[in-house]
């Protein structure tokens, strides 16, 4: 009897298809235009060498898309940054920021990335909107005097929306920062979930479980706009970390 009831319920839960809607000719034309436009853009970015960055970073966390590229490189919002950034984000002293493969601090809107000192960001770090990451601070009594610091964020970290990473913090690999938390202490071991204000340890995963975390890799590896294999040489000439 129970199974019968469950079956009936499941049948009811099947989503009915939408009623037929009349699509105007104009909509049909725009839809086709968009479809063809997308196909042409895809073919272009796949085959033309200097456009290939759009294709190769297409489905990654640190994607470069035409709109954001235009805003950054042509209109000049955050032009100094060597990784893709949203035009509502801010970066201070981008030459002090080291960005790993597949991560882009400030690609989400409203971020504040401050590199007074050294700011190291690892590979494949996911950073949400409105996140503040700081490397340096200022003098204790005189706010006009900046003080350099070092902040490190490990590989495969997630940083939730509205979090703040305070200066001189080190987060290990696979640290998950809950949304809205203020990180004031270092968590060097990693493999943990932290959250709150000030951020406290919510869950520490045991060493037996380390092999269960997935270390995914992108097919095409890029540090910002620079291919990963050229990055070591590029870094010596162009940035300060």
């Amino acid at each position, binding site marked *: 009897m129970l199974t019968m009831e469950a079956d009936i319920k499941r049948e009811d839960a099947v989503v009915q298809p939408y009623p037929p809607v009349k699509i105007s000719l104009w909509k049909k034309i725009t839809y086709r235009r968009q479809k063809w436009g997308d196909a042409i853009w895809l073919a272009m970015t796949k085959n033309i060498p200097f456009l290939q960055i759009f294709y190769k970073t297409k489905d990654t966390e640190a994607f470069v898309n035409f709109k954001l590229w235009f805003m950054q490189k042509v209109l000049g919002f955050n032009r100094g940054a060597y990784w893709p950034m949203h035009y509502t984000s801010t970066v201070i002293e981008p030459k002090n920021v080291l960005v790993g493969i597949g991560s882009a601090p400030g690609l989400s809107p409203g971020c504040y990335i401050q590199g007074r000192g050294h700011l190291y960001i690892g590979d494949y770090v996911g950073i949400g909107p409105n996140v503040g990451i700081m490397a340096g601070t200022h003098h204790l009594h005189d706010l006009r005097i900046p003080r350099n610091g070092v902040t490190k964020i490990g590989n495969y970290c997630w940083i939730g929306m509205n979090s703040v990473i305070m200066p001189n913090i080190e987060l290990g690999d696979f640290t998950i920062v809950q949304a809205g938390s203020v990180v004031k202490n270092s968590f060097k071991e990693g493999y943990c*979930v932290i959250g709150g204000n000030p951020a406290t340890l919510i*869950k520490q*995963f*045991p060493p*037996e*479980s380390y*092999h*269960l975390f*997935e270390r995914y890799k992108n097919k095409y590896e890029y540090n910002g706009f620079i291919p990963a294999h050229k990055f070591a040489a590029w870094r010596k000439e162009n940035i300060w970390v």
Partner: protein
Amino acid sequence: MGKDLLEELAIIFREVFEDETITLSRNTTATDIEQWDSLTHIEMIVAVEKHFSIRFNSMDLKKLENVGDLTDMIQQKRGA
């Protein structure tokens, strides 16, 4: 064979999720057990690994949909 495995798993699940009323079937998913979230999932997998002395990797975890898949995978790993 399959039933015994489910019973063994149920004992582990009761320990990890701290709920004595848990009963498992092949169609049980994470939505059926309240305490089963992403954090306790890792704990549960570690407990299963210890109990059966096998080792999963992250690609295996991606394929799991329900308890039936888990039992199949355990049998596969034990057989291999």
